[in-house]
C-alpha cells in the first residue's frame, strides 16, 4: 500500500499512525473515507471532515489522507491550499469573521474590521497572541439584507458597528 512512499515518508507515516492509534478522530476520518470508497474525487469532502474533527489541517493529517486515498502528497497539499475554507494553521478558541461582501463593504464593514484590527493588534487570517481569537474575513456570507454582518463563533450577527464589534470581541480577548 505504501509503494509510492519510500523510507523517510513511510517512517513518518508510521509515526503518525502510532501516534494516532489512541486517537478516535483518525478512525472517524477513515470511516468517512470508506463511505466514499476511498475515491479520489472525495478529497475535498474528506478535507472538510478532517478540518471539522481536528480544527485545522496539519501536515501529519494531510499525509494520513494522502496515504489512505493513495493520492500524491503534493496533490493533497495543492488542493488544501487552493480553497480559502481550509486552514493549515491552528485557529483561536473563538472566531470572528467579518463579511467583506459588497453590501457590507458599502455599509462600512471595512471600518468594523479596522477597529478590531487596531484594538486587538491582529490582522485578518491571524490569531491573537493569547490564542483566544482568530480574525477572519469572508467574501460574502449572503446576509446582505442585514449588512454589515459579522459571524462570531458561527453565529451571524446583523448590523454591526465598530463599537458593537469591539464589545463582542473584548469579551474573549483583553487588549
Amino acid at each position: 500500500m505504501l509503494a509510492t512512499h519510500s523510507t523517510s515518508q513511510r517512517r513518518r507515516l508510521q509515526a503518525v499512525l502510532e501516534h494516532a492509534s489512541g486517537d478516535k478522530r483518525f478512525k472517524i476520518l477513515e470511516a468517512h473515507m470508506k463511505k466514499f470508497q476511498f475515491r479520489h474525487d472525495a478529497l475535498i469532502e474528506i478535507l472538510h471532515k478532517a478540518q471539522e474533527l481536528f480544527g485545522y489541517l496539519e501536515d501529519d493529517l494531510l499525509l494520513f489522507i494522502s496515504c489512505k486515498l493513495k493520492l500524491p502528497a503534493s496533490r493533497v497539499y495543492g488542493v488544501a491550499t487552493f480553497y480559502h475554507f481550509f486552514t493549515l494553521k491552528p485557529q483561536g478558541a473563538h472566531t470572528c469573521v467579518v463579511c467583506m461582501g459588497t453590501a457590507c463593504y458599502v455599509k462600512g464593514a471595512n471600518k468594523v474590521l479596522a477597529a478590531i484590527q487596531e484594538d486587538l493588534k491582529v490582522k485578518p487570517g491571524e490569531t491573537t497572541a493569547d490564542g483566544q481569537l482568530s480574525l477572519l474575513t469572508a467574501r460574502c456570507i449572503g446576509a446582505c439584507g442585514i449588512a454589515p454582518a459579522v459571524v462570531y463563533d458561527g453565529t451571524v450577527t446583523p448590523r454591526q458597528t465598530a463599537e458593537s464589534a469591539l464589545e463582542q470581541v473584548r469579551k474573549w480577548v483583553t487588549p
Partner: protein
Amino acid sequence: MGDAMILSDLTQIKARELAARKKVVLRVCLAAGCMSSESKGVKERLEQAVAEAGLQEEVEVRGVGCMKLCCEGPLVQADPENALYIKVTAQNAPSIVAALKGGKAEVARTDPDAPFFKRQLGIVLANSGIVDPERIESYIALDGYQALHEVLHEMTPKEVVDAMVASGLRGRGGAGFPTGLKWGTVAKSPGAKKYVICNADEGDPGAFMDRSVLESDPHAVLEGMAIAAYAVGADQGFIYVRAEYPLAIARLQNAIKQAKQLGLLGSGVFESPFNFNIDIRIGAGAFVCGEETALMASVEGKRGTPRPRPPFPAESGLFGCPTLINNVETFANVPAIYRNGAEWFAGIGTEKSKGTKVFALAGKIKNTGLIEVPMGTPLRVIVEEMGGGAPDGGRIKAVQTGGPSGGCIPAQHLDTPVDYESLGKLGSIMGSGGMIVMDESTKMVDVARFFMEFCMDESCGKCIPCRAGTVQMHNLLEKILQRKATVRDLLKLEELCDMVKHTSLCGLGQTAPNPTLSTLRFFRNEYEELLQPDKFGPPGNGGPRESARTP
C-alpha cells in the same frame, strides 16, 4: 425502499395536508437573515404562547423561508388576515397571539400591499415564505412534484427539451445562455453516463438569491433537477453548494432524504424506468468555482482551476461525461414551467428575456431584501418604488449589478429595463442577481478597487493575464486613489483592462475589468480628479519612457 410512489399517493398527501390546515397560520421566517436576528427564539415563543392560550387546534406556527423584506426581520406573517409583523422579538411575540383573540399586538407592522410586495411576481419565490422548507408534504400540498409526474408519464425526453426551448428560459447564473439549447446539446451528446449539476456556488459578493431559494424551497430545485435529468438522460446529480451556507446545506440534505424516502428520488421514480440520485458537494471558498469547468474540477476533488473550452461540459464534462450545469434559480424555474406550460412562461417578460428575475437588493437603500420581478421592469421601479430610494434623504448615484463581473449603472440610466441585452449595452451584466445600490457618499474609484481586489484574491493563478494583470490593475487603482498617479497610469490601466478582458482563460478574468471599465465610462471625472500632473507632459509626444526598466 418502500413501494414506488404513484400519482394517487401524491394527491393523498396533498389532501391530508390540506385537511390538517388550521384556521390561522403564523409564519415565522427561518432563513439565514432572520435567523441571525433570533427568529428561532421567536418561533419557540410563539408556539409556547399558542399553547398557553389553548389555541393549538386553531393556530399553526410554521417555520418558513424568506419573506423578502430582510432589513425588517425577523418577520412574522399571520394568515388569513395577512398581517406582516416586523422586527419581532421573543419578548413581544406573545402579543401577536393575543391579537388573534382581539387583543392588541405590540409589534410594528408593515403594509403587505406596499410596492415592495405588490410589484413582485413570484415564480421562483412563489413558495418562499409560504411553504415549510423542512417538510416535503408542505411542498406537495402546493402541487409539488406533480410536474415531475406529468413529465415522466406524458412526455418524451425530446418533448421536455422542446418545451424548455419554447419557454425561452435563459440561464440565471449570469451569462443568459438559452436553457433549452443547453439541455438539447446534452441530450444529443452520446454517452451512457451523464450528469446534472446544480451550481449553488453563489460567489458574487452582495448576492444571496440562491441561498434564499435553497433555504426557502429546496424541493423546487430538486424537482427541477429531476426533470432536467429525465430530459437529458442523466441518472446522477450533484449540487455544488458553498460551505458558507450551512443552513442551505442542512435543508438540502433533509430535502434529499425526504424525497428518497417517498421514492421521488432513487430508482424507478413514479413507477417509471427513470432513476435519479442527487449528492451534495460542498465548496470550500473559491469564487472561480462558479465557472463551469472549474466547478467540475472541484467536484472531482481537484484544485478548482478552469480549463479551455471546447470541449464544452455538454460534450465532455464531469469525469469526461456529458454534463448539464445550471444554477439554482434556473432549476427553480423548471417545475413551474411544466406545471403551467411553456406558453405561460414565454408570456412573461420581454421579447428576448422571458420570465422573472430574482434580485438581492442591498446597499444604500431603504428596503433591503429579495425581490422577484418580471424581466423588463425598469431599474427605477426596483430601486425607487420598491426599494424606497436611498435612506436618510440621500441620493442614489449608481446601481451595481453582476458583482465583480458586472458594472455600475449610473442614476441617469435608471429607466433601463432589466433584461440581458439592456444591461449588457451599459457595460454591465444581469449576473446572478446581486443589486447593490450606491449613494452620493460612495466613491466609484474605491468601488472599482474593491472589485479588482476581489478578482485578484480569487484568481486561480493558472493564466497569466488574470493572475498578473489583476495585480497590476489593482496596484494602478490603488495608486490613483492615493493621488500618486498621472494620466499615463490611467492609460496603462485602460490598456490592461482591454488585454485582460480579451486574453484571459475563463470568465473570471474576462470580466474582471468590467467594474473598472464601467466606472471609467460613467464616472471618468472621479478618476481624473485624483490624477496628478505629469512631469513628462502628455504621453505619446516623445517624452521619456516612464518607469522604464530593462530586464
